[in-house]
């Protein structure tokens, strides 16, 4: 059934034709529009006005109701009336104690969930004393070498009470093992642990570019993690399918959603191929999208993504549980939109993007600090970022009505158009042999690099406006003095001292035996690597040792050179 009767649509079309002939023609005659054509950031053409006639072809079932298939209007039946989105600011720097202190400050400021950024050596499976870690320890995130570091990171924080997101990728299964080991040591009920691992390997090869192993073993590690976590820690989301980074590296809104759905399909095929029922793990798949600058496009992106996902899970994977078809999303505002010039403007940019995420129906959010174009954010910048979300949540009454823009002629048309384009891209991925193969071939990488260059050209030509940078430039406000988050120079040595102490104090023979077992299990595709990894971290094997063990079995990844 369609939303409007044929008679009503016919009437509107007649009246619109008359309006175009009279009022519109007169206005255009006296003053032409500023641009010959209008479009969204991802290139979908925009009309000057939308009417019921523009959505006459959309069946009412495509909208549905919140918390019901196809979830266009929201993930839950009560949305923010039942539970507001989680304010989840990511933080991580220096030694575990430094990040722990920041967490306590943010909880006190009103943050409702934790999120951890790790330093590059930890992400890439290197210990702090590895020569390749030179200059990087504790720099862009917290340094983790052993299970004791994870204990220090969450010191004094009740992990049964607060959900924790871990932005960890190629080494995710090791950090998960450490998290579980700490929870067990503290006597927590593992079934009560709530949180999310990022652990999305395919997007790493094409976007965030953190890798250790070749593509297929990395996907197998994710399979092991999903299957183990589903039973051992059923409230943990073992993966956050991260479109955010696809956008960050240059992808437009359509590429963000289509490519991440292609990766979702690949992962679901991997896990179901290993014998797990889709409904036993799909409810714990979670997503991470950007909220970028094109306000309505972004809102429609969230709505279209929910609908596409619901259809993939129901039609392609024959899921039966509604939870398997419900897309839950964490959102971060767009770091790419932030400028060093007049950096206070970043507060306004972030607030608008955050509002878009709320109108799009996000489940949790990180708002960027206004100083993130300089360095990782200061405490003061994080407080303003949290306040931004609190003002949207508590002062402006946008949370009382679910999907308040639903039914807007424009919003429904654009949601539908974006969905159509996403399906076209997904069909192309299928025709070309699927996501894993295309990642190996560099297909996604090329598409994203092309899109990044096109965006740069638009900015360079002044077609894409950046206030204060290429429009309304104020020469006097160019050199900003900002207080920058300081780096603790003692951080590296402390991590190295601790590593040495751990290595000296543990049962070395037991560690070697467990690492050998792990290598043996990695040689076949059959075993799940998590149980042995958990034993290894409990025996104080380091993150670098565990990752190196599998590198010896699987080798490293050779990047296809795409510019």
């Amino acid at each position, binding site marked *: 059934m369609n939303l409007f009767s044929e008679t009503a649509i016919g009437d509107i079309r007649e009246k619109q034709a008359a309006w175009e002939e009279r009022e519109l023609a007169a206005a255009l005659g006296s003053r032409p529009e500023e641009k010959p054509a209008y479009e969204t950031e991802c290139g979908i053409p925009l009309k000057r006005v939308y009417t019921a006639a523009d959505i006459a072809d959309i069946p009412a079932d495509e909208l549905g109701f919140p918390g019901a298939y196809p979830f266009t209007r929201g993930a839950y039946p009560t949305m923010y009336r039942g539970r507001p989105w989680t304010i989840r600011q990511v933080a991580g720097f220096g030694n575990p104690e430094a990040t722990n202190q920041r967490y306590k400050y943010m909880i006190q400021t009103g943050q409702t969930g934790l999120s951890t950024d790790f330093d*590059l*050596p930890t*992400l*890439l499976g*290197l210990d702090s004393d590895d020569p*390749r*870690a*030179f*200059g*990087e320890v504790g*720099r*862009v995130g917290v340094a983790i070498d052993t299970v004791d570091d994870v204990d220090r990171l969450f010191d004094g924080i009740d992990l049964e009470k607060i959900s924790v997101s871990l932005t960890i990728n190629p080494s995710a299964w090791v950090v998960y093992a450490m998290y579980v080991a700490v929870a067990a040591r503290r006597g927590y009920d593992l079934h009560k642990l709530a949180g999310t691992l990022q652990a999305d390997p395919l997007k790493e090869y094409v976007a*965030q*570019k*953190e890798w250790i192993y070749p593509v297929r073993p990395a996907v197998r590690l994710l399979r092991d993690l999903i299957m183990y976590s589903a039973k051992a820690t059923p409230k943990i989301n073992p993966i956050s399918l991260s479109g955010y980074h696809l956008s*960050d*590296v*240059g992808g437009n809104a359509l590429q963000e959603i289509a490519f991440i759905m292609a990766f979702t399909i690949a992962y679901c095929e991997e896990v179901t191929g290993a014998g797990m029922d889709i409904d036993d793990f799909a409810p714990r798949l979670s997503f991470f999208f950007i909220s970028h600058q094109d306000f309505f496009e972004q809102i429609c992106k969230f709505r279209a993504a929910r609908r596409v996902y619901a259809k993939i899970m129901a039609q392609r994977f024959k899921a039966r549980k509604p939870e398997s078809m419900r897309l839950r999303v964490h959102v971060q505002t767009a770091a790419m939109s932030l*400028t*060093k*010039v007049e950096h206070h403007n970043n507060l306004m940019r972030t607030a608008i993007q955050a509002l878009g995420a709320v109108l799009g129906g996000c489940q949790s959010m990180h708002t960027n600090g206004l100083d993130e*174009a*300089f*360095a*990782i954010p200061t405490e003061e910048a994080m407080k303003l970022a949290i306040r931004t979300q609190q003002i949207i949540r508590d002062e402006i009454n946008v949370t009382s009505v679910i999907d308040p823009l639903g039914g807007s002629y424009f919003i429904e048309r654009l949601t539908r158009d974006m969905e159509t384009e996403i399906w076209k891209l997904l069909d192309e991925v299928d025709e070309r042999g699927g996501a894993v193969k295309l990642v190996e071939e560099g297909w996604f990488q090329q598409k994203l*690099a092309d899109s*990044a*260059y096109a965006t*740069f050209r638009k*900015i*360079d030509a002044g077609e894409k406006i*950046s206030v204060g*940078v*290429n429009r309304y430039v104020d020469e006097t406000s160019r*050199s900003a003095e*900002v207080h*920058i988050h300081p*780096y603790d120079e003692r951080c590296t040595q402390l991590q190295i001292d601790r590593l040495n102490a751990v290595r000296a104090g543990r049962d070395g023979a037991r560690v070697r035996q467990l690492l050998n077992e792990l290598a043996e299990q990695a040689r076949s595709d059959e075993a799940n690597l998590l149980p042995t990894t958990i034993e290894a971290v409990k025996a104080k094997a380091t993150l670098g040792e565990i990752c190196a063990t599998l590198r010896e079995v699987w080798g490293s990844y*050779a*990047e296809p*050179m*795409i*510019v």
Partner: protein
Amino acid sequence: MNEASIKQASGDAAERNAMTGTIRVLVAKLGLDGHDRGAKVVARILRDAGMEVVYTGLYKSPDEVVAAAVQEDVDVIGVSLLSGSHVPLFRELGRCLREEKADHIFVVAGGVIPEQDYAALWDSGVDAIVPQEARAELIVTTIRNLIAARGRV
């Protein structure tokens, strides 16, 4: 080195370039920083401006970057860094260049580099720092001006 030339140039071609004046640039990523969007965009900008560009790919150590720069006989190494580790990494890059007697090669820095760290980078032998919001023209003229001021070696 695991790099791909955007334009292939053999040793002979490099000699011809020295005479014809085509500027050769190594676009490099140092350390563990995976942000390669900027580096790739800059590589295309320089190529479009008529320069010969070699891209190193990710995760290169300072000595690997210097070895590639010497082998490819480049005029300029352009390093994009967004990991906050620019001070120690450029210091090490400068040391490696001097050690290899290759400090005639210009070093241009870009990425997320706060003004307060500029002095440390100049001390390390960095010749120019390109701001984040730089337009294509600025990136190209920065490199051309460096070479015009001294000539190619």
